[in-house]
C-alpha cells in the first residue's frame, strides 16, 4: 500500500502540487438484522481504494479511485491536480496550513475479540434469542435486532514525509420492540435507539450488553406505554438519561464547535453556528459544573471518535470545549487553526472512506463526570421528569433552538420515581439549557456512547462520533411542546 501512496504523491508533486496527502483505505463491514424471528439483512461488504488531496495554484483538489494499479493511482493524482487548478479559478486566497510534525507510525485500536472471527451462527443465535424474548411479551407487535461490525485499515502518507498505518475495529448492536395498539405506535430500544450502542472495539461489547436479559423488560415497557399518562406540557425539571444527554451534547455542543461551520463552509447544507469567533473565551456556555472535552485519545475510552492520528496526519488530542461553564475551544484542522489563534490543528479531520475528502468532525465530545450518585439525584428531586432513550431530535441550522423527544419517561415526585409517562419531549435554546444544569452524575454512571450516523458534508459523509455522558439534571425546561396544540 505504501507504494501506491508514494507513487500518487510523486505524480501529484511532479504535476505541480505544492502539498499532497493520500489515504489508501481497506474497509470491511458486516451487517446482521432480524425481524419477528426471521433473519433480515445478512451481508458483508469490502472496499479498497485511494483518495488523494492536493494543493496546486494555491487551491484544493481531491480525487479518488478504486483502480489499485500503478496507472490507476497516477491518473487519480493527476486528476486531483487538474481539479485543484480549476478550483483556483474561484479562490480568494491561497491555502495556508498550520505546521505539523512528520510521523512514521503504526497503531491498532482497542478490542479484545475480533467480531469477524466470531462465527456468524453465534451472532445470529444471540439476535434471534433476543428477538424471541421481546415477542414473548403480549402486545409486542414487532421485534427487531441488529449487529454491525466494521474494520478499517488506513495507510496515510503526505508529501511532508508522514507514513501512518491505523487499524480501527468498530462493533455495535441493539434491540427494538414496537407495539401498535388502536390509535398509537410506541417503541422501546436497548441499549440505545437508532442502532444501539457502538464502540471502537470488538465482540466483547456485544457480550457485555446482555441483549437477551434486557429483551423482556423492553417488551413490557413498550406495551405499558400505551396505558401510561401523556407527558404534561409545562416548564419544569428534567433529568436526562446518559444516552439522551450524549445526543444532546452531539447536537448542541459538538456541532456548534466545528470551525468549518463557524466559518460558513457548511452554510448551504449542515448549517452554520451561533458560536461566532468573538465568543471564544467570552461566553458562559453552561453552568459552572459543566465541563466538556473533545478527546480523541485512547485514554478517553473506546469511542467512535478515538484514533491515534486524524486523516491529515495530526496526532489525537484532548481539547477543552467547556471549562467550568466557559466556552474554551473549537474543533479545528490545519487550515483553520490560525483563525482561532492556535499554533497547530486540533486534529479533528476525518473521512468516511477512501473516496471522500477529510473534513472537521467530532471526535469524542464528552461531558466529564460530576459528583452525584444517580440514586441521590433522584432523591434530591422533589418534582421532575426522568427522560430516557432518544425518539426524535431536531435543532435549527445555527444550533440555537432544539427539540428532543424520548421513548419513555417517569415522573419524579418527592424524591422517588413514580408513574410512567408516554410521548415525552423537551425543548429550549442551547445556552439557556446548558446554563440550567445543576447536577451531573459521577463516573460510575458515565458511559462513552457511540453515535454511528452523524451526517455532514457534500457529498454527504456518515461518521461515528463518541459522547461520554452520565445522567444530568436541568431546571426550568420547557416540557411537552412536541404534542402541544397551542
Amino acid at each position, binding site marked *: 500500500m505504501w*507504494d501506491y501512496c508514494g507513487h500518487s504523491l*510523486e*505524480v501529484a508533486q*511532479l*504535476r505541480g502540487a505544492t502539498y499532497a496527502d493520500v489515504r489508501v483505505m481497506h474497509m470491511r463491514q458486516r451487517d446482521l438484522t*432480524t425481524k419477528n424471528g*426471521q*433473519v433480515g*439483512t*445478512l*451481508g*458483508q*461488504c*469490502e*472496499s*479498497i*481504494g485511494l483518495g488523494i488531496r492536493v494543493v496546486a495554484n494555491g*487551491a*484544493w483538489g481531491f480525487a*479518488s*479511485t*478504486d483502480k489499485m494499479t*500503478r496507472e490507476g493511482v*497516477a491518473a487519480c*493524482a*493527476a*486528476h486531483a491536480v487538474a*481539479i485543484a487548478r*480549476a*478550483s483556483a*479559478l*474561484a479562490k480568494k486566497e491561497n491555502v495556508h496550513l498550520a505546521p505539523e510534525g512528520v510521523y512514521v507510525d503504526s497503531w491498532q485500536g482497542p478490542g479484545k475479540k475480533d467480531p469477524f472471527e466470531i462465527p*456468524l451462527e453465534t451472532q*445470529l443465535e444471540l439476535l434471534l434469542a433476543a428477538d424471541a424474548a421481546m415477542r414473548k411479551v403480549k402486545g409486542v*407487535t*414487532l421485534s*427487531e435486532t441488529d449487529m454491525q461490525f466494521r474494520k478499517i485499515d488506513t495507510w496515510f502518507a503526505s508529501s511532508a514525509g508522514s507514513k501512518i498505518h491505523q487499524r480501527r475495529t468498530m462493533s455495535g448492536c441493539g434491540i427494538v420492540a*414496537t407495539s401498535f395498539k388502536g390509535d398509537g*405506535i410506541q417503541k422501546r430500544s436497548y441499549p440505545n435507539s437508532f442502532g444501539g450502542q457502538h464502540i471502537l472495539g470488538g465482540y466483547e461489547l456485544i457480550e457485555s450488553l446482555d441483549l437477551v436479559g434486557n429483551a423482556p423488560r423492553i417488551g413490557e415497557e413498550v406495551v405499558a406505554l400505551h396505558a401510561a399518562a401523556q407527558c404534561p406540557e409545562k416548564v419544569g425539571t428534567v433529568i436526562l438519561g446518559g444516552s439522551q444527554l450524549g445526543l444532546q451534547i452531539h447536537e448542541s455542543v459538538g456541532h456548534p464547535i466545528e470551525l468549518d461551520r463557524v*466559518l*460558513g*463552509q*457548511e*452554510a*448551504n447544507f449542515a448549517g452554520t453556528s451561533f458560536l461566532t469567533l468573538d465568543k471564544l473565551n467570552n461566553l458562559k456556555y453552561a453552568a459552572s459544573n459543566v465541563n466538556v472535552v473533545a478527546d480523541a485519545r485512547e485514554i478517553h475510552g473506546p469511542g467512535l471518535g478515538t484514533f491515534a492520528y486524524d486523516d491529515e496526519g495530526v496526532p489525537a488530542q484532548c481539547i477543552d470545549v467547556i471549562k467550568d461553564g466557559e466556552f474554551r475551544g473549537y474543533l479545528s484542522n490545519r487550515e483553520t487553526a490560525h483563525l482561532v489563534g492556535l499554533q497547530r490543528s486540533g486534529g479533528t479531520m476525518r473521512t468516511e472512506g477512501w*473516496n*471522500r*475528502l477529510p473534513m472537521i468532525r467530532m471526535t469524542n465530545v464528552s461531558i466529564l463526570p460530576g459528583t452525584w450518585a444517580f440514586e441521590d439525584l433522584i432523591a434530591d428531586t422533589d418534582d421532575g421528569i426522568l427522560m430516557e432513550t432518544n*425518539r*426524535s431530535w*431536531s435543532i*435549527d441550522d*445555527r444550533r440555537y*433552538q432544539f427539540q428532543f423527544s424520548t421513548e419513555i419517561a417517569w415522573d419524579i415526585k418527592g424524591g422517588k420515581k413514580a408513574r410512567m409517562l408516554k410521548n415525552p419531549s423537551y425543548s429550549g*435554546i442551547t445556552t439557556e439549557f446548558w446554563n440550567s444544569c445543576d447536577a451531573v452524575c459521577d463516573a460510575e454512571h458515565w458511559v462513552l456512547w457511540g453515535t454511528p450516523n452523524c451526517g455532514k458534508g*457534500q*457529498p454527504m459523509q456518515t461518521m461515528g462520533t463518541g459522547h461520554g455522558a452520565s445522567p444530568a439534571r436541568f431546571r426550568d425546561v420547557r416540557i411537552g411542546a*412536541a*404534542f*402541544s396544540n397551542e
Partner: protein
Amino acid sequence: MSAKPTTGKSLKNAAEVKAQLRPERELRKIVDTVLRLGKAAGIKETEVQVDEGIDALTRFANNAIHQHVAEHGLNVSIRTMVDGRTARVTTNRIDEDSLKAALEGSVSLAASQPNNPHLLPLLGKQKYRNVNRFIRATAALSAEERARAVKAACDLADRKGQVAAGIFASGQSQSILVNSRGLIAAYRQTQAEFSITMQQGSASSWAKANAADVRQFDTKALSQTASRKAEMAQNPVELTPGRYSVILEPAATLDLVGFLFYDFAATAVRDKRSCLADRMGKPLFGANISITDDVYHPEQLGPAFDGEGVPRQQVLLVDKGVPKNLVYSRRSAKEAGRKPTGHGFPLPNEHGEAPMNLVIGGGKTSLVEMIASTERGLLVTRLWYIREVDPYEKIMTGMTRDGLFLVEKGKITKAARNFRFNQSVLEMLRKVESLSHSHRASGEEAFEMVVPAMKVGEFHFSEVTKF
C-alpha cells in the same frame, strides 16, 4: 499489492482520468465470471449486481471554492441462495480471485442461518420499458465548467455584498442486474445538481435544482433567486408561535410530505409501523390530494426495475384523499395475495419495499396567486432537520430555514424569524387549500420527487428561534 518503480518523466506525463463509464460489455464480463464460478461451485441460484459511478462536486463558501472532489467506483454485489437461505457479499475488487472469494463468502453467510420459509426463488427473464436518462451534456461537464459557473455565482454575491455557499455537482452511473435464471436488467443515468445559499448579514435564502440534464436548470437564475430572497430576508420580525396559514414552496412540500413514502410499503403496514395501518380505503386526506408512484414520469430519475429485477409499475397510492394502494415486493405481494409492483429492495432485507418516485398531483394556483389570496400567513422557502415525533399521527418536527416571510393582505410585507413546527402530516393534507402545478423539486431531507407548492391552513408552529 505493490506498485512498480517508475521514472519522473512517465510520472509527469501520466494520463489524467477522462471520466467515462465502462462499456456495458465489461460489466457483463464481470457478471459472467461470477455466474460461471457459481455454476462450477454447484450453486443453483446466483444473482449479481454491478454498480459503477463517476461523481464530481464543486463546493463553494465565502464566495470561493473550498472543496472540489471527484470519485470513480465500482461495486459487485453477489447474492446466492442455498437450501432456502440467502446472503449478500459486496466487493469493489474485480479480479477473478476476489470475485470467487466474494461468491464463497455469500454461500458461507447464507449457510450459517436458519432456513427461511418465505424465501422465493430468483426471478426469471423480464421485459422493461425503456427510460432514457443518460444525457451526454451532463456526463461531459468538466471541473473547469463547474468552477466557472460557481465563479459567476460568487461574483454576483460580491457585487451584491452577499456571501455565497453551495455546490455544483455532476455525475453518471450505471447498473446491471443479472441472475442465473436469465434475468438481465440494465440502466444508466446522469445527474446534475446546483444548490446555493446567499447570506446577507444574518439573513439568508436558498435555491436548488436537480435533473438528469444539466441544461434543464439555469445556475445564474437560481443564484439570482437566492440573492433576491436573501435581500428580502433582512431584519426579520419575531412572531408569536401558533397556527398560521402557510404557503409551502415545492422544496418545503417535498421535505415534509416525503416522510410519508415508507408508510406506503405493504411490509410497513403489515408490521403495523405505518401510519396507514388500519386506515387503508378510508378518507384520510383532503379530496384534493392524490399521490402516485411513477418512475416513468418525465421529470423522475431511476431504473425501470426494482432490487429483484421486477419491472416497476405505476401505482395510484392516494386517490382523492383516500389511501387506495400500497407497493409490494415479491414476498409481500405473495403474502397479501397481490402482484408485486416493482418496488422491492435488494434482498436480503427487513424493510421490503417503498415507493421511490412519488408524484403528488398538483393544481392550477400559482405561488403568486397563493400569496395574493392570503389575508395573513407565512411563505416558507425551505424546511430543515425534520424528524418524526409520532409515527401513527405522523407528527413531524423541524425548523423553517433560509427565508420565512410574512404575508399580509395578499403581499409579502416582511421577513420573520424562523419557527419550529410540530405538525401532523395527515392533518396538514386535510387542510390544503390550493396547489400549484407539480414539478421535480429538490430539498435536503427527502429524495427528489414531483410535487406542487401548497397553501395549507392552520399549520402549527410551536416555538421561535433567535434568527
